[in-house]
C-alpha cells in the first residue's frame, strides 16, 4: 500500500514537472498583443501543484525575450496583469470566472481540468501515462487577441468554434 502510494506520488511529480516545462513551451507558439510589461508573467491560480518546480525551472529564464516573473494567487482577485494564467481551481464557476478574466486581459489560460477547453479555456493540457494530450480552443484564443502558431495547432486537438 505504501509502495503504491509512493508510485502514485512519483508519477504525479513527473507529470507536474512535465507540465511546468510545457507551460513555458506553449509561450513559444503563442503571440500576445503588444504589452508594456517588462516581464513575462506566469500566474498560478488556485492550489500550487508544482511546489518549487516553476521557480526552479524559470529562475533567471527568459520567455519572449523577457525575464520570467512568477505569481501565485489563491483567488481571482489576487491575479494581476499576466501573460499566462494556469488555472488550478476545483470548482467550475471559479474556473469559468478565471477564463472570463483571461479572455478580457489577453491572457493565455491553461488548465489540466477536464472540459476546460470546451468551457472557453484556451489550452487544456492533460498528461496521461506521461503522454501529453493538448486541446486548444482556437476560437477562444482569437477572441482573446492571441495568435497560436500552426506547429502547436498541428499537434493539438483544436476546437475552432466557440463552445457554448
Amino acid at each position: 500500500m505504501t509502495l503504491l502510494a509512493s508510485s502514485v506520488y512519483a508519477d504525479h511529480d513527473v507529470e507536474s514537472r512535465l507540465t511546468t516545462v510545457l507551460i513555458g513551451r506553449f509561450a513559444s507558439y503563442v503571440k500576445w498583443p503588444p504589452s508594456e510589461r517588462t516581464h513575462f508573467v506566469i500566474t498560478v491560480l488556485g492550489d500550487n501543484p508544482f511546489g518549487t518546480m516553476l521557480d526552479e525551472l524559470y529562475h533567471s529564464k527568459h520567455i519572449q525575450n523577457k525575464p520570467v516573473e512568477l505569481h501565485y494567487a489563491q483567488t481571482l482577485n489576487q491575479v494581476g496583469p499576466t501573460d499566462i494564467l494556469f488555472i488550478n481551481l476545483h470548482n467550475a464557476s471559479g474556473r469559468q470566472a478565471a477564463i472570463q478574466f483571461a479572455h478580457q486581459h489577453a491572457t493565455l489560460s491553461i488548465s489540466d481540468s477536464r472540459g476546460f477547453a470546451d468551457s472557453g479555456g484556451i489550452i487544456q493540457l492533460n498528461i496521461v501515462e506521461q503522454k501529453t494530450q493538448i486541446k486548444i480552443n482556437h476560437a477562444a484564443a482569437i477572441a482573446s487577441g492571441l495568435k497560436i502558431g500552426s506547429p502547436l495547432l498541428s499537434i493539438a486537438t483544436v476546437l475552432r468554434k466557440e463552445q457554448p
Partner: protein
Amino acid sequence: MFNRIAIRYKLIILLGLSGGFALLISSLIMVYSTYLNQSKSSIQILHQLTDIISENMRAALAFGDANSASNILASLQANPHILLAIVNDQAGQVLSEYRSHLLPATHAQVHKQALAQILREHADTLQQTDQFIQRTQPDWMGVVKPVFFEGQPIGTLALLSDTRAMWKEFRRFVLMQVIASILTVVLLLFLSLKFQAIFTRPILNLISGMRNVAQTKNYRTVLTSDHQDEFKHLYDVFNSMLVDIQERDERLFKLATTDALTGLANRHHAMEQMHGMITRAQRTGQPFGLIMIDLDFFKKINDNYGHQTGDLVLQETAKVLLSSVRDYDLVTRLGGEEFVVACDDASLQTCIVIVERILQGLASHNIEYTPGCYLNVTASLGVYSSTLHSADTSIEAILSAADAALYQAKDAGRNTYRLA
C-alpha cells in the same frame, strides 16, 4: 615478341591501347565522379528531408506528443526510399518511429542498433546546433540531427534511406559507360586501321623502292613522296644515298675499265669488250676489224725528252686515235706505247680508212712538250679484218695476227700499216 609484329599492327595496337587507356582513365574518373555526385545528391536529399521533418517535429517533441510525431513520420510513406525514421526525446527514449514496409523487422532491428550506437557515441555532438552525424553504408545511408527548441536540444531525429535508387542510377550509368566505351574502342580500332596507313604506306613504299633498287641495281632511281614531314626527309636521305652509290659505282667502273694516263679503255676492259664484239660479229656475220698501233721510236722519246714528255706523247696519241675512229669504235691502251682500236661492224675498207686517218692525224699533230717546242710521232699499224679470215677466230688469235702485221709494218720502215 613485340619486335616481331609488323609496324602496321604495332600502330593499330598502340593507337588502340592509347585510346583505350585514355578512355579507361576518363571512364574511371567519370564513374567515380558520378558515384560522388549520386552519393552527395542522395545524402543532400536526406539532409533536406531531415531538416523539414525536424522543423515539423519540434512541437511534437517539445510537448512529447507521440501521436503527432507518428503522424508527421507517416508522411514519409510518400518517399519509398526512406526505410526507417526514429524520433528520440532528450532522455533518449523513442517518441515515435516509422518503418517502411520494405524494411524487414530483422533488418530494422539491426539499423536501430546501429542508430543507438551512433547516438551513444555522438551524444555530445548532437547537443550542438548545426551538428549532425551521417553514415553511408553499402545498402543504406543515414542522417541523425538534433532537434532544438528555444536554443535547447529536445531530442534527435534519425532518417535512414536505402541506396537502391542511387545504385540503380549508378549501375545504369556504368552500363552506359561500358557500352559507350566498347563502341568507342571499336571505333578507335577501325580508325586505327585507317590511320596506320598514313604512317605505314610511306614506309612500305620505301621498302618496295629499296627492294626494287637492290634487284635492278638501278641507282639512278629517285623515290618520291607526297609527305612534307620526316618521311620526306627519309626519302631525300635515301635518294641522296642512291646518288652517292651511283657516283661511287661510276668512279669504281672508271677506275676498273680505263687507263689512268690516257683515259682510254684498259687492257682488261678492252679484252671483255672485244670478246663481246667478236662473238656478236660471229653470230650476226657482220664484219669486224682490229687495228694494233705501236708508236715508232718511243723509247728514244723517253730517253731524249724524259718520261714526262713520253706520257704527254701517249696522251696526245690517245686524242688522235679518238678523233680518228668512229664513235662506237673501242680505243684501248694495251700497255706501254701499244694501242688497239676495235672496229665493230667495219669492213676492211672502213678499217683502212680509219688507219689512214690515224697515220695522217699523228703526222699532222704537233705535240708541244715545252712551250714553243714541238715534236711529232709516227706509228706502225697492223690491221686485222674478219673479211680476210675464218669466222671462228679467237680474240687471242686476232691479236696475234694483228701484232704480226704490226711488226711487218715495223720491218717495212715504220709509219705505215700492214694487213694481217
